[in-house]
């Protein structure tokens, strides 16, 4: 056996190692910080060091050069003055979240309701039903959690309703894109070799055409008719998208990848390509389709239009964003701080934070887990976010 061959293996280098390491560290660090918050026992030496550390931190923060340090500390572990519970939403509508302890809704008055042991959920366009998925089950439930129909398919994920009528539901199942009618009938495969990215229905008339965008395993974006299967258009393989969103009027499709936002016309023409201000991990188009909110580098939330972005919330470990139905607020999910932060982006800037989110969406049985934001219902065309 050749020593040369072994050496080549030892010297092997994968693509973009530094970038991958940096992105992964952001995620791993956030998970670690979140875990640390759940560890009750603290070593005694930390208690002994705490007063000294407090003096050092105070000195740094009070010094003229400490402004950036103060900002960092303010946002390292969440917003100060966070409410201890979700007493009310700052805007109208209802939230849908899901996670290890099931799917939940939160009403405008802050009351929460568990829909059942579902790991993913999606509002119907007018919030009358919720498509839920878990393991090998897809179901439609009403907002009380009553199951209206149920379907068994392998490894179901990412259900999405057609807007505005909700007459179809698209979902993924082991690399296959499938479509089912809103009463649970007519389930059929639409495409195989599909990437694990939620599909997006193009908003249209109540009775269609039911046009559906999805991402292939090779990174192409394809738009098909959801009933006939006919391919309407597709892109060349490009940067791997992690999110697809149609504008509310159905005239533009936003394709988000880590470093790039592309928009396409309804006919498939590339209309813009924007380089993002960092590695994006989540993004949401405002209900009017004019502004884009992004989580960048796991460290900040930015909002912008036409390639010009401004920071609305810095914070180590911020995870996801969702627009309020009226487009005036952004809800930022911040697992590392166990907080939700509502940021008013229209009119006078304002921030309202709520802490102990994991505890509020827990039935007490499972270990605490921070829930995933599934949408803030509802705009005229469908749930936002």
């Amino acid at each position, binding site marked *: *056996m*050749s020593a*040369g*061959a*072994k050496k*080549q*293996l*030892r*010297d*092997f*280098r*994968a*693509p*973009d*190692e530094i970038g*991958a*390491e*940096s*992105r*992964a*560290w952001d*995620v*791993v*660090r956030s*998970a*670690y*910080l979140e*875990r*640390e918050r759940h*560890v009750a026992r*603290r*070593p005694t030496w*930390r208690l002994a060091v705490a007063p000294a550390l407090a003096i050092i931190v105070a000195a740094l923060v009070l010094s003229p050069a400490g402004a950036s340090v103060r900002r960092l500390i303010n946002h390292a572990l969440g917003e100060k003055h966070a409410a201890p519970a979700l007493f009310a939403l700052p805007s109208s509508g209802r939230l849908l979240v899901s996670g290890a302890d099931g799917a939940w809704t939160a009403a405008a008055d802050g009351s929460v309701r568990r829909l059942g042991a579902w790991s993913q959920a999606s509002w119907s366009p007018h919030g009358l039903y919720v498509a839920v998925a878990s393991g090998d089950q897809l179901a439609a439930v009403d907002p009380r959690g009553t199951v209206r129909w149920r379907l068994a398919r392998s490894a179901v994920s990412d259900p999405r309703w057609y807007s505005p009528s909700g007459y179809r539901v698209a979902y993924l199942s*082991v*690399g*296959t894109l499938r479509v089912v009618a809103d009463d649970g009938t007519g389930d059929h495969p639409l*495409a*195989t*070799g599909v990437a694990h990215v939620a599909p997006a229905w193009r908003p249209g008339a109540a009775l269609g055409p039911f046009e559906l965008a999805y991402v*292939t*395993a*090779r*990174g*192409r974006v394809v738009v098909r008719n959801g009933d006939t299967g006919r*391919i309407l258009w597709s892109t060349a*393989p490009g940067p*791997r998208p992690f999110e697809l969103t149609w504008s509310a009027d159905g005239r533009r499709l936003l394709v988000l990848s880590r470093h790039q936002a592309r928009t396409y016309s309804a006919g498939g023409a590339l209309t813009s390509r924007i380089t993002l201000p960092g590695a994006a991990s989540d993004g949401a188009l405002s209900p009017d389709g004019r502004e884009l909110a992004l989580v960048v580098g796991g460290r900040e939330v930015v909002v912008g239009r036409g390639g010009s972005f401004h920071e609305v919330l810095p914070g180590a470990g911020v995870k996801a964003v969702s627009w309020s139905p009226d487009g005036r607020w952004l809800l930022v999910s911040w697992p590392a701080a166990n907080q939700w932060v509502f940021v008013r982006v229209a009119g006078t800037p304002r921030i309202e934070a709520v802490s102990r989110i994991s505890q509020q969406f827990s039935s007490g049985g499972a270990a605490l887990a921070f829930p995933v934001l599934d949408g803030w219902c509802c705009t005229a065309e469908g749930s936002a976010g």
Partner: protein
Amino acid sequence: MSPAGESVRAESLAVSGELGRRRARPPRSEQALIRGALAGSEADLEALFRRFWPRAYRAAFLIVHDHAAAEDIAQEAFLAAIRRLDRFDRRRRFGPWLGAIVANRAIDWARARSARRETADGGADPPSPPDTPVGRYSQEVLAALAALTPEHRAVIALRYLLEYSPGEIARTLELPRGTVNSRLRRGLDALETRLKEMDR
């Protein structure tokens, strides 16, 4: 990179220099870093991450040949490791423990991708541009191993990237020791042939 990350890098640079030989302390053991991370030290966690990430990512990439998937696999492995850190038996080595998670997840991913390909319809995607590694002979390594199954590639990655012993590989992948040896031989033969072709 966080300030803690900068200090980790600075430490490793100092060790390699003249100044470093006089001043630098030996790197902390992985057991000490795990203890520190369990006690709440983010710096220790970062040191642990920086020490093991590159090889975990390379191993995943060598098995799946897809850098986005490799990044996800290595990242998920670290997240799984953090979740289980307080149950980790500190008499064991962290690297092999992490490597086992990476290898098994990468094999599962590669198998799932193969299954998807087999069921793909006529309108399947054209091949995308290959992920290009950057090391001097990395492209040749990748090409030489492309003909092997993910399971074969996992054996190679575990042995020569993660430096497992054949016995450790056999236990990790639940394979007979002889199978591990034959897969190692076949992988090295493929690579050697490719390198000879290059030299001509």
